[in-house]
């Protein structure tokens, strides 16, 4: 079974803090994704990566950056957290041979 893990299930941070969310997958997938999910807005793509050190902006990249130094790990960085970044953050991965994405359990981030 594909396993995607995220570093925290729940996280509480203060406005202005730098926040790191980490995602690890164990199936040697080339592609990894970061989404946020908000009520009424559904799943929105923040960034994705199709190879180590490669990244592309999704639909809502503002206020976020990413890092992919190793194939299995994809980090989402909030440079200076703001209250409007309070959300559920979901990481996903997939192999290049398929379009199916497999999701992690999510991180519920609250920015105070």
């Amino acid at each position, binding site marked *: 079974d594909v396993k995607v893990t995220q570093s925290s299930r729940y996280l509480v941070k203060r406005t202005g803090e730098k926040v790191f969310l980490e995602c690890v997958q164990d199936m040697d997938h080339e*592609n990894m*994704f970061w989404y946020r999910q908000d009520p009424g807005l559904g799943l929105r793509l923040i960034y994705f990566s199709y190879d180590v050190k490669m990244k592309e902006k*999704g639909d809502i990249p503002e206020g976020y950056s990413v890092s992919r130094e190793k194939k299995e790990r994809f980090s989402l960085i909030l440079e200076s957290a703001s209250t409007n970044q309070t959300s559920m953050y979901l990481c*996903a991965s997939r192999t290049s041979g398929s*379009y*199916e994405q497999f*999701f992690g359990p999510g991180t519920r981030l609250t920015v105070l």
Partner: protein
Amino acid sequence: EDQVTQSPEALRLQEGESSSLNCSYTVSGLRGLFWYRQDPGKGPEFLFTLYSAGEEKEKERLKATLTKKESFLHITAPKPEDSATYLCAVPRTGSARQLTFGSGTQLTVLP
């Protein structure tokens, strides 16, 4: 622009009362349609992939079907543990690395 629309937004069923969820899509050249189940506070869990019109997939009480413009998730004799939000998604036109998701149907099955 790609669009994925799910209906209804919410559905309440009595245990054993069969029904269907709808996912309609507009994309150029469908390269698959995916169904996910999401429990509250958790990440979406992959259920099915459908690739061509007429295809069907089954898993326990769930059956997914696909036509050229929509997909249905049929739930037969549901149980309370089937309560969840069901999402569908398609690869984006011009950027298959990305998926376009519907907003989901929140299913509640009452005992």
